[in-house]
């Protein structure tokens, strides 16, 4: 199969099927409803199950149920819907079940708007639900990358027995780009017998696998949380992904930006280069784990005077960038939060203020 022109939302749905996921439960919400529209037609063809839940809360527990049975399962939603799912996500994380959540972000808070946004950064990387947990969060900057991240997300969720989130802004879902799908994955979840409720590993001992989230014994809960923490530390060691752009030059400013916003920054950087100004960029592809070391090193470069965080929100990533830069340089913020994507010209104007 060669390249096909596809809307991000549809490509995400197709990628999940090719990753061997045949269970999709969802509740429609702009700007990601095309995923459900596409899969309601395509999943039955592929031998899968599409079910529309009565609400996002219900969907999150449908995901929990399927995941606890060792089935590959995913859902998609947008900001307010993810808020509703956050309770379920906390439970799934506690129950150590693999699942994939896609958030095609729109403006908030509240109902906000339906246009692109990156205002769910904190919710995604710091835990939107209650308790000590983390999600592995990946942020695509193109439809092709959304496909690749989707296809790797299930394996990562199974490796850690922890939900993975794909965090895209509205444009990632709405725009069409040529995509090439990698070969379909054949591998089934390998370890599910050890833990899934229908797993067979322990049955011979007349005992069944149990997925639970209630630990009334404080020592037991403490041990459970320490074990979860060890998984997040392992993610920080093994799963950090980022792209560095124009960092071989002696740049005066380091931009940190992700998703659609990073593409706008890339154009700004190219245009500034033509004007004789070098700017470097680190684009986190994983938001948790965050590319701390890469940003520390890039900001520490001799020519670099400051870092600039460019986001479609009120600077929610700034504190992670500050933490990474570790006081070596000042960290600034530029962005918009109403659904309008800043243009390259606006980013250039902001950069010029900082490097003059």
């Amino acid at each position, binding site marked *: 199969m060669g390249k096909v022109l596809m809307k991000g939302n549809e490509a995400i749905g197709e990628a999940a099927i090719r990753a061997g996921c045949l269970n999709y439960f969802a509740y429609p919400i702009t700007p990601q409803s095309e995923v459900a529209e596409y899969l309601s037609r395509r999943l039955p063809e592929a031998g899968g199950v599409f079910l529309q839940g009565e609400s996002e809360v219900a969907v999150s527990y449908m995901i929990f149920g399927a995941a606890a049975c060792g089935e590959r399962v995913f859902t998609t939603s947008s900001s307010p819907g993810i808020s509703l799912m956050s309770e379920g996500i906390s439970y799934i994380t506690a129950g150590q079940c693999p699942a994939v959540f896609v958030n095609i972000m729109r403006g908030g808070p509240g109902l906000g708007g339906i246009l692109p946004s990156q205002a769910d950064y904190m919710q995604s990387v710091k835990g939107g639900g209650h308790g000590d947990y983390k999600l592995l969060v990946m942020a695509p900057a193109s439809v092709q990358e959304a496909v690749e991240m989707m296809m790797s997300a299930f394996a990562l969720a199974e490796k850690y027995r922890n939900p993975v989130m794909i965090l895209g802004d509205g*444009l990632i879902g709405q725009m069409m780009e040529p995509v090439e799908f990698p070969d379909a994955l054949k591998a089934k979840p390998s370890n599910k017998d050890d833990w899934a409720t229908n797993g067979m590993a322990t049955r011979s001992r007349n005992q069944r696998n149990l997925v639970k989230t209630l630990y009334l014994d404080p020592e037991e809960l403490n041990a459970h949380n320490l074990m979860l923490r060890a998984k997040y530390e392992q993610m920080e060691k093994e799963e950090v992904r980022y792209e560095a752009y124009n960092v071989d030059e002696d740049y005066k400013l380091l931009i940190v930006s992700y998703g659609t916003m990073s593409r706008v920054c890339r154009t700004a950087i190219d245009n500034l280069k033509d004007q004789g100004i070098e700017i470097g960029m680190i684009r986190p592809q994983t938001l948790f784990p965050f590319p701390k070391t890469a940003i520390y090193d890039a900001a520490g470069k001799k020519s670099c005077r400051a870092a600039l965080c460019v986001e479609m929100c009120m600077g929610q990533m700034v504190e992670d960038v500050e933490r990474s830069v570790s006081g070596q340089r000042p960290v600034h913020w530029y962005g918009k939060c109403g659904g309008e994507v800043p*243009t390259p010209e606006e980013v250039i104007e902001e950069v010029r203020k900082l490097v003059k």
Partner: protein
Amino acid sequence: MQNEVQFAGFGGQGIMLMGQIMAEAAMQQGYEVVWIPSYGPEMRGGTAYCTVVISDRPIGSPIIRYPRHLVAMNRPSLEKFAPAVKPGGTIFINSSMISIDAGRDDVDVLKVPIIEIAKELGNVKTANIVALAAFVNRSQVVDFELLRESVKAKFARKEKLIPLNMKALDAGKEASMATA
């Protein structure tokens, strides 16, 4: 080399489809391409526009404030977007619905009465294909024959509409050469 085309009109005029058909042709020609819809609380009769970016290099910003070309299907679209078109670009005007000028002397202006042409072809719904053909033939943004293939592919599930749309393509092409 990067080309940006903004298609603009009201909901129901086939704006999104025009952009998609052209984007498909550009992809077949080997270009990088991005199609971005306006998606807001849209409805039939409300405003609708989309932007197609075509490039021989990976496309950075998909957000284009100053497109090279504009296809204006109704008057508010022309008034709103004509001032943003880059000098040297093309402005296509649906002259069946737009009685004013582009107000620019630094761009190539192409006026085609697409609704009258489509009616002559026997189906007013082909007006957007007439417009697309006229614009593409004039601006040469993508290869015309690939555009033809792209239209065929788009109507693959409604095969009986293909001959009509081929006629619409030819009529649009002809109109773009006949009109100043």
